[in-house]
């Protein structure tokens, strides 16, 4: 498509976080000449989310130190950024969106990047409990910092032992809080990793003085003389000042659903991030999309997916051939441990654990299904992460004997060396 055809057209992007913002800038880069209009209900300039539970939480920084793009960048690229504005509806017939105040904005192409929101479980006493805070936005972090600062005993209970809960626990410990994590499953990170890695992280938190309790199903938040008590179904109780809610997210799919777009486990999109409406795309955490490498539809909560889908959607909107085909990757920082993950381990039948040079803190977990490498979790081991990425992509057969041999340094040539037998 030539620029002439996309001149004077309007692309509206609903949601200005990693996906929406990157899409807006990518549209310009790919040659979109017309208007680009971004909306988000959050009044703050769009910011990086991963640091919120990590370095940002433990700092005194304002969000200005953590912006996705400077305010001037939007002006420079002619991107109209409308913050603190909610979008109520999509009118596909007239190609309009209806804003919170009832006004209407027309579009030629629409990008839905509405993301997700934290689940607030329906535990009696939780919703009306003060200082029960999820962690998704900069405002949540401001509330958590404030609560910790103003708490004498600094007792914190984190409900949920997933990445957000564990990162927040590590950060709050650094701020001097006494932290207990309550996990409903029999191990932390149960949904996303192998038991060996759950054990590693459980131990890491223990070493750092954070208590992790598993098989803890929270059933009520009670108040006794102004003190909050978190009660579990096994009869155990945890007094606390602050509750962090980290039990997962709901996809913000209501806008798309009300507009009649296809929804499954998220907004369903094709390999160009397009929905079942020719002129509407969806990107980021809210999408249910096909991953060609793993041969199935997936939903991902990650910066990588948000940014890469944003670029694909922008390219496709500008009329160029493209296809979303990326191996998912993630990272997490807790204490002095840097975890880097690549691939999707779901369906694995074997995990090979490597410990480099008997260094307890330099590990990697290699997830196989038969001879196929599905995923690698690398702990303080960027080399394993990079090798894993390459080998998952290439599909080369891996010499498991060499992989298991921790006496030898990790080398890619060893991993793909011929197998004796």
């Amino acid at each position: 498509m030539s620029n002439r055809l996309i001149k004077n057209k309007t692309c509206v992007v609903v949601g200005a976080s990693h996906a929406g913002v990157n899409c807006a800038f990518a549209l310009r880069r790919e040659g979109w000449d017309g208007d680009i209009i971004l909306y988000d209900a959050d009044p703050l300039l769009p910011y990086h989310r991963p640091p919120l539970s990590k370095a940002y939480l433990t700092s005194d920084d304002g969000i200005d130190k953590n912006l996705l793009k400077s305010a001037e960048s939007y002006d420079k690229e002619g991107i109209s950024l409308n913050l603190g504005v909610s979008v109520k509806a999509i009118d596909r017939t007239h190609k309009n969106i209806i804003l919170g105040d009832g006004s209407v904005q027309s579009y030629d192409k629409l990008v839905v990047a509405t993301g997700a929101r934290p689940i607030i479980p329906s535990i009696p006493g939780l919703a009306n409990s003060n200082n029960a805070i999820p962690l998704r936005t900069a405002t949540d972090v401001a509330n958590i910092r404030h609560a910790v600062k103003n708490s004498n005993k600094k007792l914190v209970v984190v409900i949920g032992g997933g990445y957000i809960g564990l990162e927040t626990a590590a950060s709050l410990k650094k701020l001097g809080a006494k932290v207990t994590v309550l996990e409903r499953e029999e191990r932390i990170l149960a949904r996303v990793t192998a038991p060996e890695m759950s054990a590693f992280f459980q131990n890491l938190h223990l070493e750092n003085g954070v208590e992790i309790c598993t098989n803890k199903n929270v059933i009520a938040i009670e108040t006794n003389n102004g003190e909050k008590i978190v009660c579990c179904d096994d009869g155990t109780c945890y007094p606390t000042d602050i509750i962090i809610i980290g039990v997962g997210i709901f996809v913000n799919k209501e806008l798309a659903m009300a507009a009649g777009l296809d929804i499954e486990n998220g907004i369903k999109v094709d390999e160009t991030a397009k929905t079942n409406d020719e002129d509407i795309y969806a990107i980021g955490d809210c999408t249910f999309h096909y991953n060609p490498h793993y041969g199935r539809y997936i939903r991902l909560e990650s910066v990588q997916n948000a940014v890469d889908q944003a670029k694909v959607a922008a390219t496709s909107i500008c009329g160029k051939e493209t296809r979303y085909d990326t191996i998912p990757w993630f990272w997490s920082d807790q204490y002095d441990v840097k975890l880097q993950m690549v691939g999707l381990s779901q369906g694995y039948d074997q995990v090979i654990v490597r410990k480099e040079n008997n260094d307890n803190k330099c590990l990697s977990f290699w997830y196989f299904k038969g001879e196929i490498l599905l995923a690698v979790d690398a702990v303080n081991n960027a080399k394993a992460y990079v090798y894993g990425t390459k080998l998952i992509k290439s599909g080369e057969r891996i010499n498991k004997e060499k992989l298991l041999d921790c006496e030898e340094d990790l080398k890619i040539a060893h991993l793909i060396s011929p197998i004796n037998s």
Partner: protein
Amino acid sequence: MAQITFITSDNETITLEGKSGSVMALAVDHGIKGIDGDCGGVCSCATCHVHVAPEDMSKTGSASQIEADMLELDDNVNEFSRLCCQLEISDSLDGIVLKVAN
């Protein structure tokens, strides 16, 4: 305060002035092509790869272990490679020239 010059893959030369923060953040703020900084500067994505001008290596130092590991299999890696999220702007970086690797 430091003046930092970026040369993109299109051979565009852009000189920016930075006071603090990382060189990656400075580049992203000014839309330097090829510097994405997707992970926000925690050495997790390798989308801020630059080649330091050989004569400026004494100012920047060479890549740390994690940078070297992240770049080991990169097609464009060389002895002057750095991930510029790991370069903190200070007076000592004044005048350096960085070629964007991608």
